[in-house]
């Protein structure tokens, strides 16, 4: 069989085209690198002493330090009540009754609910809220029109996370 030059050229080109088109498979693996994930609050595992609790609470509510005499007095009063959470509730509700407690107004809170939530988390829990926490609080404050900033502060001052550092 006689092969013409043009046929030979076509066969050569075909071989080159097909040969370059066929490449070895590259096995790519798409995965997620293992990264240690922790909750925002897992570092808080040391219980505040009564003195720490009352000092921090006072600073959070009044934006100033508690005097040493008052610290000793309130510390002793907490000692005098066995249920510490109950003692904290009584102390906080007394502090809330003072005129100089620094709490945003109802209008300020409702004008910028997200800002209020962020600030409250940072003030009491020293962290940003997660998106789900922000969403829950936004929804709760917006649907319960009588919820005041004071009540929100009260819940933060008495929650478990606030008792730890």
């Amino acid at each position: 069989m006689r092969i013409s030059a043009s046929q030979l050229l076509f066969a050569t080109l075909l071989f080159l085209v097909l040969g370059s088109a066929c490449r070895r498979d590259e096995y790519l693996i798409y995965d997620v690198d293992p990264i240690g994930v922790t909750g925002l609050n897992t570092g808080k595992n040391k219980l505040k002493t009564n003195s720490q609790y009352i000092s921090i609470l006072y600073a959070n509510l009044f934006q100033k330090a508690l005097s040493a005499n008052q610290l000793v007095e309130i510390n002793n009063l907490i000692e005098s009540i066995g249920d510490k959470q109950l003692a904290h509730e009584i102390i906080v509700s007394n502090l809330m009754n003072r005129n100089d407690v620094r709490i945003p107004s109802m209008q300020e809170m409702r004008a910028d609910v997200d800002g209020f939530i962020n600030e409250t988390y940072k003030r009491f829990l020293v962290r940003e809220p997660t998106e789900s926490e922000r969403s829950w609080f936004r929804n709760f404050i917006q649907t319960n029109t009588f919820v005041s900033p004071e009540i929100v502060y009260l819940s933060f001052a008495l929650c478990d996370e606030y008792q730890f550092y």
Partner: protein
Amino acid sequence: MNRRNFIKKLGTATAAAMVLPYILPTGRLFAATGSQLAPHVVFVMFAGGVRQQESVLQRYLADSQQFSSEGNIMSNMLNGAAPALKVAYGTDPGVGPRGSIPIPPILGQTLQSQGLLFPELRATTAGHYSGYNTLLTGNTGTTQGLRQKPIYPTIFEYLRRHAGTPASKVWFVGNTIGNSLPLLNYSDHADYGVAYGANFLAPNLTFGSSGITHLSNAKVYHPEEEMAPMLQMKYFLNNSYNSGGGVILPNIGNTDAEKQEIKDFVRDTFSKVQTNQVAFPPINDNGDLRNVGFACEVIRRFRPTLTVVNLSSVDGCHSNFTGYLRSLHRADHAVGYLWNFIQTQVPDMAGETVILVSPEHGRNLNPNPILDENDWAAYDHSDANSLRTFSLMAGKGVPSNLIRGSEANPLGSSMDHVLTMAEILGIKSQVQMSGLLAPGTQSLFDRI
């Protein structure tokens, strides 16, 4: 319904009916099975260190100051005539020697006549805090550290765990926050602990001047419009913290309703303090007497299953023997007033209560060199005489006018009180089976 389904459903319903009634609100599966002598116990820790010689032996100054004057200065608790000479333990007259007017007895019949006296009991220790531990745990306080929670479970925990008693029905009313007293409302024991603790209150402090400053002006929140959303937000925050790996907060387990009741009690008591309406005894010139007045308010409000009241003014005996005699006489006045209050002012508990009274330990045989205003020598607590003490109980189910043991024949131990209270409250077998009492500990009823 076919026969097979009917039998299956019947079986399930029967099993549920057998199990469910025994799941108590506190999570306990089975109700206490022991028979109860009385539904209420009041235990007065007649503490501070009481010398046998001036108490049950009624030797007044004869065995302490080498002066021949004998007699009973505990006229509510013990039978016996008062001293005739050198009376210095009473109240002050307008004119005349200090303390020369004895406080009239409150009870028409002494607790000794009404009940059971163990006049010569043995304490296990001569230290206050270890003595308290012994009275409340039924075990020796010998390895108990100061400023450390009790090693062994307290009677509060036994009661709450084995009888399913709510927290607001178990109270420990202390006269101070000193001497590690606030640590005694629950132990560190792994099987018991904070979840079964008692409500502690040191009312002289809570309702004192600093309490009026910092606690009496609590804001009253509207239960539905303010407290309910506050609790909702708090629960959300707690769930968020706990689901993120947070630590469980130690909690004695007052429910929200119980907490509210206690807050109401605190508010009402402040009102009573400010209007002089607290149920103080007729003479209330020391901390013990005021403490008993507040204990009466707790009893009237909560009608506790178990109330422990601590007194300790007699410990002034380290430096002032006259003050010690005055305090001992007043401690007796406090006990008489407390028992009378229960019988006359708390209808639910009258005739349904047992009272126990016992010091945590005694005091030394020989004095230290300190002399007081009357040149009387003072006494510490460290020798064998300090281990001599007594126990007195009266009330429902307690034999009357009975004495067991004597100076020559000591009977009973200060550790016996836990099992005695357990027997009264119907949890004796559970406490025994815990295996956490000291060997040889018995109920005082078993020593009769």
